[in-house]
Every structure is written in structure tokens, then in C-alpha cells.
């Protein structure tokens, strides 16, 4: 459910951030009600079509508004933003998608499954079950191009980052770090615990939409065998793989 039943109002703070940006902040919590309010505000700003605003980007509890030129009158801009926030359509449906991401949890990829199993006193099957049964919310993309910040990891799988980060984590690695889970969109160093791999590309700079997902979307991980992983990988590499998705703008 992405539609709010009633209006939740937040006390927002507006701060100048350098010469060309304004940072709007919600309370410092990771919460879906906050995310929905942020996305509704973001959509309203897009709909209002302020010419001087070139980019609007959210994180867990903030919206960054980038202006094309030096923002000379901070107060005027803030007043306009406040007006847009107030008038944002409460009935506005947030159009989002549910994406099904195939993940192979085979030990070939899930190189930290054994260690997690010992530490959390959970069978590997239980880890996979808990990880693939949850529905995750995309809060925003950051850290690396195409890296999704996901909320919704089952408490039983919360596990600290590794004390020594790995220098190289494979592209597509599915991992757990702290209270979060995520997919490494590219080869990168990293300290998260790796439990599987997806053949799906999370970032393609050649596409006009370089990442299929956006803030507010939902993700589920579907376990697949090593054989299926290979097959999907071939389709992905050939550019013909169709990612399963459905609209959730109910």
C-alpha cells in the first residue's frame, strides 16, 4: 500500500545548501510514511514545473532541490516550495512498481552464508527463506550508480558489516550489512556479507533510464538455481531479458 489514508503533516526544515541548492529535511527517521510524504512533495514539485529547478532528489529524510543558477533569494524560493508542499494533492497516487529480482543463493555466490548461519544460529535455508519472502522498499539510489537503498530486511538477518571490507565484490552480489540488504551494481570494494548473486543489471549508463527502479518502488528477491542464473545472465548480456514487474498504484 503506497497511498496514505490520511494526511500526515511533518514539520519540515529548509536549509540553503551551497549557492544553488536547498535541502528540505523531514524528521531523522527511516520510515515509509516519511518516504511517501517526500515522494508526494517531489511529484508536486515536478508537476508545478518551476523553471529554475533542474533536479530534485530524495534520500531517507530529505529532498535536495538543485537550481540552474545561483539561488539569489533563498526566502522567495522557500516560500514557493512551502506553497507547493501545502497544495500537494493528498489524493495523489504514487505510481510505483514491484520488481521481481532473480537471485541465486548457491554457495558459489553466497560466500558468507555459512558464517551468517553460524552467527545467527539459522539454517542456510532459513536465511534464504527470510531474505526472499520479504517485500523491500526502494528509498533512494546512492553510494554507487544504481545502488538501491532498500528497507524491509527481516530482523533475524540483521548482522554487522565485516570488520575488514573485501577489496573486490562481484557485480550483482546480493548482500546484508547492518539492518540493510542490497545489490552491488558493479564490481566494488565493500564490507557487507554476501549471500547470493543476481544476473540482473541494476545500472546501464547506455540507457535513458539507467536504472529500472526508482524511489518508492518495491523489490522482491526470487530464489533461482545456478542453472537458471546462467540462463538469465545470457539473456541479460544479450539485452533481451524482461524483468518481471507489476504496477502497485492501488
Amino acid at each position: 500500500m503506497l497511498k496514505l489514508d490520511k494526511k500526515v503533516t511533518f514539520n519540515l526544515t529548509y536549509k540553503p545548501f551551497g549557492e544553488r541548492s536547498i535541502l528540505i529535511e523531514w524528521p531523522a527517521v527511516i520510515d515509509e510514511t516519511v518516504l511517501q510524504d517526500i515522494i508526494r512533495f517531489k511529484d508536486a514539485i515536478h508537476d508545478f514545473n518551476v523553471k529554475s529547478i533542474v533536479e530534485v532528489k530524495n534520500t531517507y529524510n530529505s529532498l535536495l532541490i538543485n537550481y540552474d543558477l545561483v539561488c539569489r533569494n533563498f526566502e522567495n524560493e522557500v516560500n514557493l516550495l512551502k506553497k507547493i508542499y501545502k497544495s500537494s494533492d493528498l489524493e495523489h497516487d504514487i505510481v510505483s512498481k514491484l520488481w521481481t529480482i532473480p537471485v541465486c543463493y548457491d554457495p558459489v555466490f553466497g560466500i558468507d552464508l555459512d558464517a551468517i548461519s553460524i552467527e545467527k544460529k539459522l539454517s542456510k535455508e532459513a536465511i534464504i527463506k527470510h531474505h526472499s519472502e520479504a517485500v523491500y522498499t526502494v528509498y533512494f539510489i546512492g553510494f554507487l550508480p544504481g545502488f538501491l537503498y532498500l528497507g524491509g530486511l527481516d530482523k533475524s538477518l540483521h548482522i554487522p558489516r565485516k570488520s575488514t571490507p573485501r577489496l573486490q565484490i562481484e557485480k550483482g552480489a546480493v548482500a546484508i550489512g547492518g539492518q540493510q540488504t542490497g545489490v552491488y551494481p558493479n564490481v566494488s570494494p565493500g564490507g557487507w556479507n554476501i549471500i547470493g548473486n543476481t544476473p540482473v543489471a541494476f545500472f546501464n549508463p547506455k540507457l535513458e533510464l539507467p536504472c529500472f527502479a526508482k524511489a518508492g518502488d518495491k523489490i522482491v528477491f526470487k530464489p533461482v538455481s545456478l542453472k537458471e542464473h546462467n540462463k538469465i545472465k545470457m539473456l541479460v548480456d544479450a539485452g533481451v531479458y524482461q524483468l518481471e514487474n507489476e504496477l502497485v498504484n492501488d
Partner: protein
Amino acid sequence: MIKVLKAGFYSSIQDMGRFGYQEYGVPYSGVMDVLSASMANSLLGNDVNAAVIEITMTGPTLQFFKAITICISGADISPQLNKRSIKLNKAIQVKSGDVLSFGKLSKGFRCYLAVLGGFKTEKVMRSRSMYKGITAQFMLYKDDELDHEDVLTGVASAHASIKVNASHYDSEVINVFKGPEFDLLSKDQQKELFANAYTISKDNNRMAYQLEATLKNNLKPIITSSVLPGSVQLTPSGKLIVLMRDCQTTGGYPRVLQLKESAINVLSQKFTGQSILFKLV
């Protein structure tokens, strides 16, 4: 076409950057010193967003295979055409076969080579700025061949040359605004921030400049939020990190200061061991 005979320390193609893709976690990139790059372009009458070569510390050796007008601005790395010194900030006509090389670094850290019409290298996500994982390569290598616009007319006044304000290189002052978490610092911490000169550590590159010396820090990390080029982060160990053009789009350290745009340009011309002083504007 221009061929890279020697790569030098670190050169890359940059324009004004990659805008509109922050939502996907894509860094802005773009020239570190916008002022100097714009000067090289404007002296040639180029579009402000025309792609240039950003040259760091030691220059590459380049050979021209077409006659073209060039201009070099920014740091003085003693540029030479066919082993004869050439001037900075001046449109210069080169012939096919000419070789551009560089010598000693005498002022600044980064210079910009613009060619009339701009470099026509690969454009990804509306920008030619090189960045690892976005463009096919992130720096120039020996034997690279760079295409440029095939223009011979429309040269801006070949005699035009510009004097550059020396403070762009000599001043220690880095003008800043308060960052989003500035007010969380105690009065003493705020005072300390502006009282000390900070030395630039050896960890400085297009992503960030780390500063030596530490600030007493008792701030908690923030919930991951947006950062910008010019954001000054305070790490749990008290280190200050100034983010630069290739920085990530989000971060979890308190953002205590934000550099003025012109201060990012000034810092881009500084290097390991030099010191800076933050000044609130």
C-alpha cells in the same frame, strides 16, 4: 585527431559535468576548476560546455594530426609546442605533426587544454566527462586517439591573452557557507574550524580532498543524505573531507561546511602539503 604519445600523471576528458542523473546515484563529474576551463574555452569562442582535457600535475605528450587552434588555461605546467614554450591563456594555432609537451609545474595543480570546437569523445548520459563505470575509460592512456571538431575558421582573436588573478593560486582562503549540520557543532568546535589552517593530505583526487589534523568530534553519523561537490564532511575520527566533482551522491557523515562554487575551483589548484583556511562568507 590528437594522439597521446605519453599519458602523464592523470589526464581526463571533462566538460561541465553530468547533470540530471543524481537520482540514479551518478556523480556530477566535470572539470575541477570551472573558472580555468571556461577561460580556455571562451578564448577560443567555444561553447562553455565544450569538452577539454584536464591535466593534473605533470602533463601528457600529445601529437596533433590536423591543424587546429588550441588554448591552455589553469596551472602552469610549462607547456611547449615542438619544445618551444607557449603562453597560457592564449589561442595558439598548431599544425599537423606538432607535438605538445609539458615541463615543470610552477603554479597550480590542474590545467586545461581546449581545442577549437571541443573534443568529440564518447558522450554518455549527456556528458563526455570521464568517470569509472560510466564512460569506457576514466583517464587518458598512451596511444589514445582523441577526435575533435574539424574546424579551421572562426578562430577567436589569436592575439587575445588574459591576465589571471594571482589569488586564484596564491590565496589560502577557501570561502564556505555553513553546511546542513554546522549548527550541531559546539561553539568551540565552530571556532576551531575557522581558527586552524588545514594541510591537504596525500589523499586528494577528483573525488575528495582529505585534510590532515583532526577536529574534536562528538557528532553522531547522520542518516545517509545528499552531498554535493564542495561539501565538507566530518568523520567519526574527526577528519575533514572536502568532496570534489567526482564525489558520490550521498553520504553518512555530518556536512559541516559547504564550499562556495568559486572555492571549489581554488581548492582544485592545490595539492598535497599546501594549507587552506576556511572563511565563512
